[in-house]
């Protein structure tokens, strides 16, 4: 253990001794026992490892832990379960492997809904791969969370610009 990295994790201070090659994903999962963040690909394609770094969603599989010293990290463990109603109702999760990453990105979008003036929900979710849902359940849940009412029925249309 050659490095000590101190940062803010889910609102509280943490200081952890890590190996130099450690990725933030590894530190969270194996050293800190926060297994909510998942590894799906190790190459920044699937987004299952999404966490917030200084308020932005990033792939923690591509973040060296030493880079988060003094920074603010938030993981799925810190999210408020009360926000998850639409995700449950609309079938946004099936096997669950992509789900924490999806939820992180989705709730971040909801909290920054001004982005929908320039982006669609689907574009903002494109970094979260899902193999089970076909994406409708996810997109519907995000739309509901943001307060946009969809077309209803069997797959709602995007009610966003872009």
């Amino acid at each position, binding site marked *: 253990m050659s490095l000590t990295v101190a940062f803010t994790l889910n609102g509280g201070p943490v200081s952890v001794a890590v*190996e*130099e090659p450690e990725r933030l994903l590894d530190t969270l999962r194996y050293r800190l026992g926060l297994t909510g963040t998942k590894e799906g690909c*190790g190459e920044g394609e699937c987004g299952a490892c999404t966490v917030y770094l200084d308020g932005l969603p*990033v*792939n923690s599989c*591509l973040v*060296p832990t030493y880079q988060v010293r003094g920074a603010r990290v938030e993981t799925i463990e810190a999210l408020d379960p009360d926000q998850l109603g639409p995700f449950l109702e609309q079938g946004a999760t099936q096997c669950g492997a992509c789900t924490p990453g999806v939820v992180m*990105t989705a709730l971040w979008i909801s909290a920054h809904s001004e982005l929908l003036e320039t982006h669609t929900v689907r574009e903002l979710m494109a970094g979260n791969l899902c193999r089970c849902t076909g994406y409708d359940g996810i997109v519907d849940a995000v739309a509901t969370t943001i307060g946009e009412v969809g077309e209803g029925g069997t797959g709602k249309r995007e009610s966003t610009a872009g």
Partner: protein
Amino acid sequence: MKVLLAERVPEALGLLAGDGAAIPVAGGTDLLVHWPVRVEAHDRTYVDLSRLEDLKPPRWSDRELVLGGLTTYWDVIRDERIGREFPLLVRAARQVGAIQIQARGTWAGNIVNASPAADGVPVLMAYDAVVVLESWRGREEVPLDRFYTGYKEMRRRADQLVVAIRFPRRPYSYQVFEKVGSRRAQAIAKVGLAVTRSDAGWRVVAASMAPTIRRCPAIERLLEVPTPLRAPDDLLPAIASDVAPIDDLRSTAEYRRRVMARVLYDDLRGPCGWR
């Protein structure tokens, strides 16, 4: 593995000067791909750039936009002023990976990764970007269209850091960025094209069409003359002169060549008055 932490630019330059094999780390979106499997990469020395705050913000002067050495794609996407004056930067940035990559990936990192399929480099090159390199020995500036010397080879010494990317502010009468990928998001480009026109002339930049991203002088000449074309195939000789696409895991030379011809023709026929 050794990690050297730098808190300011001179410190980083000193560390790079001290160890010729040290590798600077910015956003990590190229360097850390498949990191656990690449055990040989764990035996090297890295210089962490992530705290060099001076390098993060873009800056404006009357004559130039200067992106910092750590300016990210997301910084540009969220910058309305950049979007108004240099829309191709935003267009390209939005097609890099997805938000998780855009939040971390830097333009400078894209340049020094030297991938022939890079998304940022073509639009920078089409805007006449100049790469600003600093080292313990001093400052050096290299126009981006002369920066690459071969496949993954560039005019950067191991002790140099890209601290800025600057390009002139000028009115553009035409600009377009096209990325043809394997899917509509999160795709590596099979063909990348950036085209601009200003009083400085035409710039046509192709990516994934050769060992390096490059200007296309024969096509630019065609446009400067200007030459009336009748069909996409009329571009093929100039394309053959300017680029050398290959068959690889992503696509074929034939596909790339034809797509480049068709997309260029389709985009330029209006502005150039072709059929």
